[in-house]
């Protein structure tokens, strides 16, 4: 794929001499990782460490009649075989609810199923042995007698009176419901020149991480402390949860997160089999390791999407959009996932649908129902790909119905660039977006008119190419409005501590975490720029609840915007502290000095006055030479949380160009463009790669990925051969462009960029396919993923 870099140089207060802001600095961890010197949880080996493997329910719903571990316990190397009731003596169950999602309910979930397995893959017994292989050997000998129970696998009938209720105590299979009615929706539809109504379907899929979930828990009875090496996005959140459910103080739990091989939102949740590991370590008083294998990952890593949205748009003949209406239904697993709940994706769909457009009339309804399938929760771009595909699918169908160009209808309805601050019909607040500037830029980048001409010319030769668009908004930099207000101990603020070492280099401790996305690089760039040293003089420490400032970690595109601002402020604070020392050494006023490239310089002339190494030497080893009463403070901490807006919205637009082979139904992706506005771009290459990676995951949703379940709740394609993740050979060139509208909520002005690609890609691929097939009279495709079979059926080639 071609890498293009067209970030405009917008000089701001961030443009200190030698600033790294806006530069594609290689990641500091690159050499280490590419040389195989990373330190993943899988690499962790501790003395007396045991391995756990789980016996998992083959049934989607079954009563556990009896478990006999006698034979398993006699197997070579086996240390323990532990059932749900036995483990429940060490760890308490949890319930995944948030108070701000009113009415959301769920049942208590245990680390290991107690008397009932509620999905295929739920652990019913743990076997701990010297090696994973020995544990698996013994698992085969655990005898479990099941009594199968009725399964709930169709969301459409989950609430019917005749359907079995999964958790009798809850009364029904409804987890969460929300309705919204803004403006005068019925009148708007009645007065519309045209109304388009259709149903969109989104396949259930999962985020296949390079490194599977992995955890090593080490309970030390001597110091009454638990150390957990965990591939997670949110170490402090997990510290809180491990402590809470093991009956410990948080100070008794240390979570260490070193390298993580990709997360995509998969690794920010509480997993029963991981909770079981910390409990087993406490029970057995020794380190216990669990690394999910690919097969168990498919039936235990959270799934996402799986929505059916009935949707409607009203439009006038001049293109004015009059109203949006959606009715969303999603089937989650048997439990709402803890602690972020399984209601957020549906809630986001209600919040985000119609979001880019100035349309005051909006009605939405969503229902989240329990199913006997693997649990569902937040995965990259939570709700966005669905809301965006529904909105943008409707907009292009409406444009086609009134015979309007798909870009013209957007120009007519996208919120004007000079209308900010403003909000959406659903109540979202927008600080500053750039829909029209982004669209204009996209049109230029893709050479739109030439592309349309090519498309037309090729149609005459029987070659059917399509161009599809998707304008989008993206939630980033969340404040406490996301989880904190709902009672979850998930930090919205983040901190950064920077200290000067004795040779003038700096060490930066941050609460955000590195998942492979480049957070370390961004924090290093910001700290180096704010303080005034070369990036080689910055060391970044992440992921250690004993040593990093309390923070939320990495999710909801927050690491750069929130963690970055904390690093910026900490770097500035340390600079002032160091200049105070330098000023006292030089007998100069600190405000006349600056730090540039590891030298204290005269701020006005740039003349070098004293090196940082010398300042550090004097401050640490000869403080006796400093004036009486002066104390050097060479470590500074700052925290940051967005306050002015609940979320810092970003925006953008994507386009897809593709060709449909109308004989075979195969889609060939030719080119993809994305223009997005994440405010200040700290590292253009990392932002572009986030966008590209996100686009690829969005393409996965549109064309390939789906967890296929049968009516008995069996996942039919839980392996890497049958679950199709997008691969490089099929991916198009993805060209990225940027419009920069910094957020005024922080000095850095950076918003998030991690999910924009995923948000918009499914919508524009869908629109491009429908654009390609429109001249053939094919029924619009709205049921993802768009397989060859679905396309052939739409074309009437196969019945």
């Amino acid at each position, binding site marked *: 794929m071609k890498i293009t870099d067209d970030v405009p140089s917008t000089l701001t207060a961030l443009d200190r001499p030698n600033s790294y802001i806006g530069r594609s600095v290689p990641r500091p961890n690159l050499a280490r990782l590419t040389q195989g010197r990373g330190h993943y949880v899988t690499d962790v080996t501790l003395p007396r460490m045991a391995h756990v493997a789980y016996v998992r329910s083959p049934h989607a719903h079954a009563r556990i009649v009896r478990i006999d571990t006698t034979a398993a316990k006699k197997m070579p190397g086996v240390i323990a075989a532990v059932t749900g009731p036995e483990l429940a003596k060490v760890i308490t169950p949890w319930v995944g609810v948030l108070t701000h999602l009113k009415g959301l309910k769920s049942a208590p979930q245990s680390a290991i199923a107690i008397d009932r397995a509620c999905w295929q893959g739920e652990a019913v017994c743990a076997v701990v042995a010297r090696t994973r292989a020995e544990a698996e050997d013994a698992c085969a000998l655990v005898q479990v007698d099941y009594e199968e129970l009725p399964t709930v696998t169709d969301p459409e009938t989950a609430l019917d009176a005749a359907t079995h209720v999964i958790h009798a105590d809850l009364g029904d299979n409804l987890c969460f419901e929300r309705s919204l009615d803004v403006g005068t929706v019925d009148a708007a539809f009645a007065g519309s020149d045209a109304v388009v109504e259709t149903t969109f379907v989104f396949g259930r899929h999962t985020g296949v991480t390079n490194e599977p979930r992995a955890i090593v828990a080490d309970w030390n009875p001597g110091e009454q402390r638990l150390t957990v090496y965990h591939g997670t996005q949110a170490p402090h959140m997990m510290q809180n949860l491990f402590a809470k459910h093991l009956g410990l103080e948080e100070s008794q739990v240390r979570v260490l997160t070193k390298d993580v091989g990709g997360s995509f939102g998969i690794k920010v949740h509480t997993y029963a089999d991981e909770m079981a590991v910390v409990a087993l370590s406490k029970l057995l008083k020794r380190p216990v390791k669990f690394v999910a294998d690919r097969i168990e990952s498919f039936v235990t890593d959270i799934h996402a999407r799986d929505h059916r949205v009935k949707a409607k748009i009203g439009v006038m003949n001049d293109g004015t959009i009059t109203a949006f209406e959606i009715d969303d239904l999603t089937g989650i697993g048997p439990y709402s996932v803890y602690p972020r709940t399984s209601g957020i994706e549906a809630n986001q769909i209600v919040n985000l649908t119609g979001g880019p457009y100035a349309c005051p009339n909006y009605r939405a309804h969503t229902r989240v129902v329990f199913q006997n399938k693997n649990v569902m929760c937040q995965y990259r771009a939570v709700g966005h790909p669905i809301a965006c595909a529904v909105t943008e699918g409707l907009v292009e169908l409406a444009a086609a119905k009134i015979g309007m160009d798909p870009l013209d209808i957007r120009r007519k309805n996208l919120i004007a660039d000079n209308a900010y601050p403003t909000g959406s019909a659903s109540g979202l607040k927008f600080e500053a977006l750039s829909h029209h500037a982004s669209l204009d830029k996209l049109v230029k980048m893709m050479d739109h008119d030439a592309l349309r001409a090519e498309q037309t010319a090729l149609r005459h030769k029987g070659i059917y190419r399509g161009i599809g668009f998707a304008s989008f908004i993206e939630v980033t930099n969340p404040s406490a409005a996301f989880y904190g207000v709902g009672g979850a101990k998930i930090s919205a603020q983040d901190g950064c501590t920077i200290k000067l070492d004795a040779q003038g280099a700096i060490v930066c401790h941050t609460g955000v975490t590195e998942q492979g996305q480049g957070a370390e690089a961004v924090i290093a760039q910001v700290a180096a720029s704010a303080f005034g040293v070369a990036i080689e003089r910055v060391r970044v420490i992440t992921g250690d609840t004993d040593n990093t400032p309390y923070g939320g970690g990495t999710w909801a595109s927050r690491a750069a915007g929130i963690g970055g601002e904390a690093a910026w402020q900490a770097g500035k604070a340390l600079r002032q502290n160091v200049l105070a020392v330098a000023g006292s050494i030089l007998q100069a006023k600190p405000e006349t000095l600056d730090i540039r490239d590891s030298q204290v310089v005269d701020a006005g002339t740039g003349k070098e006055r004293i090196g940082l190494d010398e300042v550090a030497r004097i401050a640490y080893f000869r403080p006796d030479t400093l004036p009486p009463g002066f104390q050097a403070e060479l470590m500074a901490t700052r925290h940051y949380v967005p306050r002015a807006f609940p979320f810092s919205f970003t925006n953008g637009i994507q386009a897809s160009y593709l060709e449909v082979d109308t004989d075979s139904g195969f889609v060939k992706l030719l080119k993809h463009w994305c223009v997005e506005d994440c405010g200040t771009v700290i590292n253009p290459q990392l932002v572009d790669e986030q966008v590209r990676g996100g686009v690829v995951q969005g393409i996965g949703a549109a064309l390939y990925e789906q967890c296929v379940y049968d009516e008995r709740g069996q996942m039919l394609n839980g392996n890497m051969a049958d679950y199709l993740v997008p691969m490089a*050979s099929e991916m198009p060139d993805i060209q990225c462009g940027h419009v920069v509208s910094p957020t005024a909520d922080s000095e850095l002005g950076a918003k998030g960029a991690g999910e924009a690609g995923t948000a918009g890609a499914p919508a524009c691929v869908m629109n491009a396919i429908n654009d390609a097939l429109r001249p053939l009279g094919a029924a619009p495709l709205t049921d993802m993923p768009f397989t060859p079979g679905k396309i052939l059926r739409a074309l009437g080639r196969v019945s």
Partner: protein
Amino acid sequence: MKPAPFGYAKARSLDEAIGLLGQQPDGVKLLAGGQSLIATLNMRLSEPRLLVDINGLHELSGIRLDNDHLVIGAMTRQVEIERSADIARHAPLLAKALPHIAHPAIRNRGTIGGSIAFADPAAELPACLTALSAEIEIAGPSGKRTVRADDFFKGLFETALGPQDVLTAIRIPTALADHRCGFDEFARRLGDYAIVGLAATARANGAGLKDVRLAYFGVGATPVRASRAEVALAAGDLDKAVASLSGDIDPQDDVQENAAVKQHLAGVLLRRVAKQMTEARS
């Protein structure tokens, strides 16, 4: 995903390998390239007690010409076949098919004999050998024998190989001047097992084709010859050939596509592969 415990023996000769196979009937597997076997072991879909490694048997490896036949040793890596000038000249169908087999890392290790002996119904090589009228050389406790590809594939992952047999080589008639071949498949991603695929050979017959052999894969338990379509194609009637596929193949629904889609795609493939064979004439 750790395999169940198993023993390992590295065979020093073909006879030793055959002898080891006899020691524990049903509990022994030959280890060739390991590209399918190791995955099935790790997923505990197969739990042999002993693996007999035949990677040291160099006499089973290599490509050579034997008069009017090309002989490919069973342990010849797929990458060698892909890059061989002899293959490109004397069995161009294999040169066309090889790039579709999985990914380069797998072809570096995977062997032709391993693929044939495993007999995955969605794999390319069994269908190619069927189209090429290849013969499979087998060594067993009672000596050597040869089985035609048409008779070798018996059922789902089931072949003419007995429990003590070792597949030693593949014999393919060298392509004559009038040889024509075609290959295509539909796979969602490069390197995936095909939803449906077609390997075909024929001989030029003036403006048409004769001796047409169409071997589909991914549509049944074994490679499937489309005999009615072969006759129709030899008669120069492509439309009839496509129409007669419904009588030749009976694909089943799978997790990717249903039978109707596969049946349709088989017809699309036939048109494309027929075009390859007729265009090759000029």
